[in-house]
Each structure stands twice: as structure tokens, then as C-alpha cells.
């Protein structure tokens, strides 16, 4: 009996010690709780924001975009653009070193760009899929050890910012690796290097060079929001992303952490699909009329949705561009259901005997955006209040809704968010760069918008460009294909031991985080 008791006591003590050892975060390690898994360390295959937030600590970029939207040097100390706007020549800072010990040169930069484009690699990440598509990337050539030239297909006023998203990696190491090895063994020149990766569980980084205050960064994958909050409040993690709105009060009421709420740059909207196929559907014909679309802007109380469902006092959007760069003469549509009804009557859609004006399907994905399902239901209710018979169709996000969206085959009403930025209004507007752009899910084709892109390309000064932009945004505000909603707020739980400020662009960079 005493033997058994001793064994029990020993194992209990062992367990408690094991637990205690884990529960305490150390001063040289920053622990971040992420909501989504990290799937790759292949720089050309990274596509999700969570993945990019980790990888950015390993790889440098030519330039960096700061939280306020300013563009600052990173690897490149200088950028010169050719007169025809097709060649971008960067001067690479001397003395940078790869994690494999080799010097980082212009050749590594050119290799990184060309490797990402190589069709044999079939990369589908942000670099080949978004950046290269947007700028019409042609190739990259190392002119010397310190100069690299990036050639693009057509002049593009925001190419410099887009090219700043490409991760530079080190040629010598990558040439020796298979694609499978490259996905797990990143070799960059960033402040941190990968120490270990347990898929589905954790990623450990250790510091290689400045900037970077903590010696180690530990990312823990904690998909369940309430578990992330509990880990934060227990003091086991320092930062958590995607705090659920209903847990904000609990975290703020704890002794260990507080929530940083920030208006993000992701533009949330209800899209009107104006394609001929959808025009033949119930309700699809009604929304072809810009007066109907404008009427519906008055029907939805966006600030109330923000306050009640997002726990954040957001201001309603006036268009496609984030506030600092938006047309400042525009004011958000107010909530005025009487005016909405009046405009719908005038547009030729009066209430019928059963009290409804027309039936319309409203499609959305579930679980991608903050409280998205409830937001959709609330919008549907507001539209019902002014006489629409709304048939909501909320589906699984990844495997069902995304393919529909990508085929531009969703609607007639649909709920969606689109990532934006603060560094240029054109960045936000390029969702609708062409009528047949993959991101023009609405099939909107108003020439007062689309024809002006030629004017922007030909404009001679920033002031002239700004005038054109404001005119385009006015059209978008009056007759556009979006029911303007809000810029999605982001909630970060931050330990009180930490001094770190969240950015509005969903980038979680930890270089400057310090202990209080």
C-alpha cells in the first residue's frame, strides 16, 4: 500500500511539475496563439495572412510597408524606375547574410523572383498568384552584386508596393533543395530562422539578427477562440489573434491581458451580382437599376450591426477605398428605411399585396469573417424590413463558397470581404481594375469607372491622379455594385507583460515587441 501511495504521489508531482514548466512563459520567448495552421515555409507558396505573418520574420523583402502605409527600405536602399515605367532597379544593401552563411546579393533577389514564376514549380502563393498577376511580372535580372532589375509588362503606379510583398530567399540553398524540402526548410535573411515546426501544433523561431527584441518566438496553433482566450488569460501566451467579440469583456476584465481593437483595412460589403445570368434570376433584375441599389444603401443600419454584432463602433464605409485615402467629400449613407422605401417605390418596385417588393437570394460563406453568419442574417432582416423577400443561403466557406466566388457565380446578393491597404488608394481600387478582373465578382461594367483607368495611367501628377480617383469613387458611391458595410475590426488579445501595438492591416509583426 505505501508503495502504491508513493507511486501515486510521484506521478502526481511529475504531472504538476510538467504542467508548471509549460505554464510559465519566459522572458526571452514571445508566445503567439494563432487561429489557423501554418501550412508551408515555401516563400512562393505562402498565401494566407497567418502563414505570411510567420514567414515574414524569416524572409526579408525589398521594401517594407509600415503600419501607417509608408513604404520604407528593407533589403533595398534605393529604387529607380525607368522612364517607360517597365523596369524597377533596386540597390541591395551590402553586408546582408543568409541563414546559410552566404552573402545575400542581387543574384539571390533575381533568383527569388524568377523561381516563383517558374511554371515547373507550379507555385500558387501570393507572389506568383497576386503580385506577379497584378504587375505583369516579366523577369528579374541581376545587374551586379548589388543591383537587380525587375521587369514588368505595363506601367503600374503601385508596382513598387506590390513588389514589396515578395520574399527574398537564398539561391545557394534553394538550388540544392527539392520542392518538398523547401517547404519545410526556409533559408532567408530575416531576423529570425526556423528552429522547429510541428504541423498543427507549433512553430519555433530563433533570432539571427536585428531587428527583433525577443530571442525566440513560439507560435502555437490554437484554432478554438475560447481556448485561445483562456490561454491568454492564464498567462500562457502573449498575443492572440482573432479574439471573438463576445470574449472581449472577459479578457479586459482579467488581470493578465487586454484586447486591442483596431479598425482593419479589410473591406466588408454586400455585392450585387449584375451579370446577365443573374439578371434573369428573381431580384437580379431589380438590382440592375442603380436607383434600387442606392435605395438599399439606406435600408441597412451598419453602425448598429457593428455595435451589436462586432462589439466595435465602426464607421460605415463610403466605398472601396480605406478611409485615409477615400474621397473625403463623401459621407456614409445614413440608416433611413423610409427613404429606402420611397426610393424603391420610385424605382418601380412597390410593395405587393403580400407586403413584399421582390424576392432575392443572398449567399454567403460561414466562418471566414468576424461573426459573418449573424451579420448576414441581420442584413437580410434589414432588407426584409423594407419589403424584400430575402432567401439567405449561408454555406460552408472553403469547399463550397470560395469556388462559387472564384467562378464569379454567386448572388444576386452576396457577402464578402476584400483585403485592402493604407499605402495607396489604387491598391484598394484594383479589385475592379477591369470588367473581367477575377476580383470583379459583381460583373459591374460602368464605363465611368472602368474607362478612367486609362486616364490614371496617363496622368502626369499625383494631384491629377487624385482628382480622377475622387471622380471614380463618386461614381462608385452613387451607382456602384457594393452595398457599403464596414472595414472589419480586428481584435488582438495582448498580455499585460508585453508592449506591442496591433496594425490595421492584419500584419502581426513582432520585431519591435518588448516586455513592459
Amino acid at each position: 500500500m505505501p508503495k502504491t501511495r508513493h507511486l501515486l504521489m510521484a506521478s502526481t508531482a511529475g504531472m504538476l511539475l510538467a504542467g508548471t514548466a509549460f505554464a510559465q512563459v519566459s522572458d526571452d520567448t514571445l508566445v503567439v496563439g494563432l487561429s489557423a495552421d501554418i501550412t508551408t515555409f515555401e516563400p512562393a507558396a505562402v498565401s494566407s495572412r497567418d502563414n505570411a505573418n510567420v514567414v515574414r520574420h524569416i524572409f526579408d523583402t525589398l521594401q517594407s510597408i509600415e503600419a501607417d502605409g509608408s513604404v520604407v527600405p528593407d533589403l533595398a536602399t534605393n529604387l529607380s524606375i525607368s522612364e517607360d515605367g517597365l523596369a524597377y532597379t533596386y540597390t541591395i544593401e551590402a553586408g546582408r547574410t543568409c541563414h546559410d552563411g552566404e552573402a545575400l546579393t542581387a543574384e539571390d533577389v533575381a533568383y527569388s523572383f524568377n523561381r516563383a514564376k517558374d511554371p515547373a514549380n507550379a507555385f500558387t502563393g501570393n507572389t506568383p498568384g497576386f503580385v506577379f498577376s497584378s504587375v505583369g511580372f516579366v523577369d528579374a535580372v541581376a545587374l551586379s552584386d548589388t543591383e537587380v532589375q525587375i521587369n514588368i509588362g505595363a506601367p503600374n503606379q503601385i508596382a513598387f508596393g506590390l513588389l514589396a510583398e515578395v520574399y527574398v530567399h537564398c539561391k545557394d540553398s534553394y538550388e540544392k533543395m527539392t520542392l518538398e524540402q523547401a517547404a519545410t526548410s526556409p533559408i532567408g535573411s530575416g531576423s529570425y530562422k526556423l528552429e522547429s515546426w510541428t504541423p498543427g501544433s507549433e512553430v519555433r523561431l530563433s533570432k539571427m539578427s536585428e531587428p527583433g527584441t525577443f530571442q525566440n518566438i513560439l507560435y502555437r496553433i490554437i484554432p478554438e477562440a475560447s481556448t485561445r482566450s483562456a490561454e491568454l488569460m492564464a498567462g500562457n501566451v502573449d498575443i492572440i489573434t482573432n479574439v471573438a467579440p463576445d470574449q472581449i469583456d472577459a479578457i479586459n476584465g482579467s488581470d493578465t491581458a487586454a484586447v486591442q481593437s483596431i479598425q482593419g483595412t479589410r473591406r466588408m460589403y454586400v455585392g450585387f451580382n449584375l451579370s446577365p445570368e443573374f439578371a434573369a434570376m428573381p431580384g437580379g433584375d431589380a438590382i440592375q437599376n442603380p436607383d434600387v441599389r442606392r435605395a438599399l444603401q439606406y435600408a441597412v443600419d451598419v453602425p448598429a450591426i457593428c455595435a451589436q454584432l462586432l462589439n466595435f463602433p465602426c464607421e460605415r464605409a463610403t466605398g472601396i477605398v480605406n478611409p485615409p485615402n477615400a474621397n473625403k467629400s463623401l459621407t456614409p449613407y445614413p440608416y433611413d428605411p423610409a427613404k429606402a422605401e420611397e426610393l424603391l417605390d420610385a424605382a418601380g418596385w412597390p410593395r405587393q399585396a403580400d407586403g413584399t417588393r421582390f424576392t432575392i437570394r443572398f449567399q454567403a460563406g460561414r466562418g471566414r469573417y468576424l461573426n459573418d453568419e449573424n451579420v448576414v442574417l441581420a442584413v437580410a432582416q434589414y432588407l426584409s424590413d423594407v419589403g424584400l423577400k430575402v432567401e439567405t443561403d449561408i454555406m460552408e466557406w472553403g469547399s463550397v463558397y470560395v469556388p462559387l466566388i472564384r467562378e464569379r457565380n454567386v448572388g444576386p446578393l452576396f457577402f464578402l470581404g476584400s483585403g485592402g491597404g493604407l499605402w495607396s488608394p489604387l491598391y484598394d481600387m484594383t479589385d475592379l481594375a477591369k470588367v473581367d478582373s477575377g476580383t470583379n465578382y459583381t460583373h459591374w461594367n460602368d464605363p465611368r469607372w472602368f474607362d478612367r483607368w486609362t486616364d490614371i495611367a496617363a496622368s502626369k501628377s499625383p494631384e491629377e491622379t487624385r482628382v480622377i480617383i475622387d471622380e471614380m469613387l463618386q461614381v462608385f458611391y452613387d451607382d456602384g455594385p457594393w452595398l457599403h458595410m464596414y472595414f472589419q475590426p480586428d481584435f488582438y488579445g495582448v498580455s499585460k507583460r508585453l508592449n506591442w501595438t496591433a496594425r490595421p492591416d492584419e500584419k502581426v509583426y513582432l520585431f519591435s515587441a518588448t516586455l513592459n
Partner: protein
Amino acid sequence: MWTFIIRRLLQSVIVIIGVTLISFVALQIGGDPTFLFVSERATPEEIEMIRKALGFDQPLHIQYLTYLGNILQGDFGNSLSYRQPAMDIVLGALPATIELTVFSMIFAIGLAIPFGVFAALYRGTPVDGGIMTLAMFGQSIPNFWLGIMMILFFGLYLNWFPISGHVPLIMPLLQGDFMTALTNIPSSIYYMVLPGVAVGFYSLSRNARLVRSSMLEVLGQDYVRTARSKGISERAVVINHALRNAWLPVVTMVGLEFGFLLGGVVVIETVFSWPGIGRLVFNAINQKDIPVVQASVIVLSVIFIALNLIVDLIYARIDPRVKL
């Protein structure tokens, strides 16, 4: 018996082909998977290039037959998300799930048997009432809710157990690192307590009821009365005579229970950040990572088939009336 085993193994091949076919078709229902792997700004030419690179340009039956052909050569394809061999990823996640499942099974069965026996022996008393109330409670509450409540109470409020995470036990063993496996044992078990209880609580409740009713049936049999009349102690009657026969339905259930618990860990793995196969499959389905889903389906099917076979063999062993 060998004929039985060989026949069952041959049937298993058909079952595995069937489940891969069903899962393959099911994953195609939501639309073209290519769109999950291309940028929203990709041109039609780029989309077509990626579709071709991923093999989605072929007719469905060709895609499936190609896949089966590759499997026969041991090639389960590369994960579309991880860009690693799909089977490696699945087998990498499996040990964590096995650990959790075994723990929850030990918890469930280890408590279900004494609970069921005591409830039967003290039928109609507060002991029986208490155990059956607990069993009803366990069968009524969803395991994810129980998991979250345990996190808040035992993890956050009392700080007795870790809130989430995993310390590997089987993986170091498989890698031949016995020292790490040995030193990980206390912390590994410590991390398993909350998720293991959350997964196993339903099973505990169901099996406690099963053992109780099975015991009640056996305790009323003539041979038990005979045993008692011979003057054998009540403890010996219960353990050697009654419980031995009450075992039969329980053994059947235990085999199936392992499969049930494997399925039950999907949600719990998410709640407790447990890096197992359940969460992997859930994410793979969402991302239409078809090679990972297919590899998982094959692995889980093999486990289920093996378990059923083992149960049948054990059943024949403990009940001489059963002939294979």
C-alpha cells in the same frame, strides 16, 4: 480461422476502394478545387496552368483511376496545402490521435466497468441512481461543450491542468528516441487528461449503462444462484461468474468504441489544439486537399477494419460457442 481472416482481408480491399471512391466524389461536389489554389486575380490561362499541374484537368474517372494506380505503387500524392507527401502528413498526425483515443478509452472502460457493476449490485439504491444520473448527464452533453467547460474550470480557474497543447509520446518511440518518450510520459498524460475525459465521457456513460444491464441479466441466471448456493464469496461470484459472462456484449462494444472515439476526437482536437488526424482531416476537407483527405480515409478505414477483425477474433476466443 485463417480462412475467415483471409476472407475478411479480401473484403477489406473492396471496402477501402469503396470509401476512397465515395470521399473522392464527395470532395468534387462543391465545385472545381483548382479555385482554392489560385489567386483571385489569376488569369484564365494561369488558372488552366494550375489546374493542369494539379491534375484537375482530367475527367473525374481518369483522376480516380490514376490515383488508385499510384496507391498501388505506394504513392499517395502530395498534399496540395503542405506540399509534402500526403501519407507522411497523415501518419505524422496519427500518433497524437491514437494517444488521445487510447487514453480516453482507458478512462471510459476503466470506469465504466466498476460503475456498471456497482450500479447493478446496488440496483435501486442511491449508488445506482447516482451512477445512472451521471451516465445520463454524460450521454446528454456535447463533448465540445464539456471540453470548453473543463478548460475554463480546471484549466483557467483552478489551474490544475494545461488548457491546450500536446506532448508527444508515441512519435519519439517510433523515431527510436526512447529516452524522450520516457521523460515525456508524465507531461504527456498530464496534457491528455482534459481532452481525454472530454472525449471519453460519453463512452463512459454508455458503457456503464451497458455493463449494468448486462450484469443485471447475468446476476439473475441460474448458474449465479448455484454459485452463491455453493457458498462462494459474493466477490468471487461477481468477478469469476457474473462479470465473465457479462463481458461478451462489452467486448463487442469496446472494439467499436475505439472507432467511435477516433471519430469523436475531431471536435475535441480543435478545442484542445491537439495536433491529430481529426483536425487534419477537417482542415483538409475545407481546403479540398484531396490527397490528404484520401490518405486519411485509407488509414482510418484500415484501423476500423483491423479493429473489427480483432473484435471478432477475441469474441471467438472468449465465447467458445462462436465459430469463425
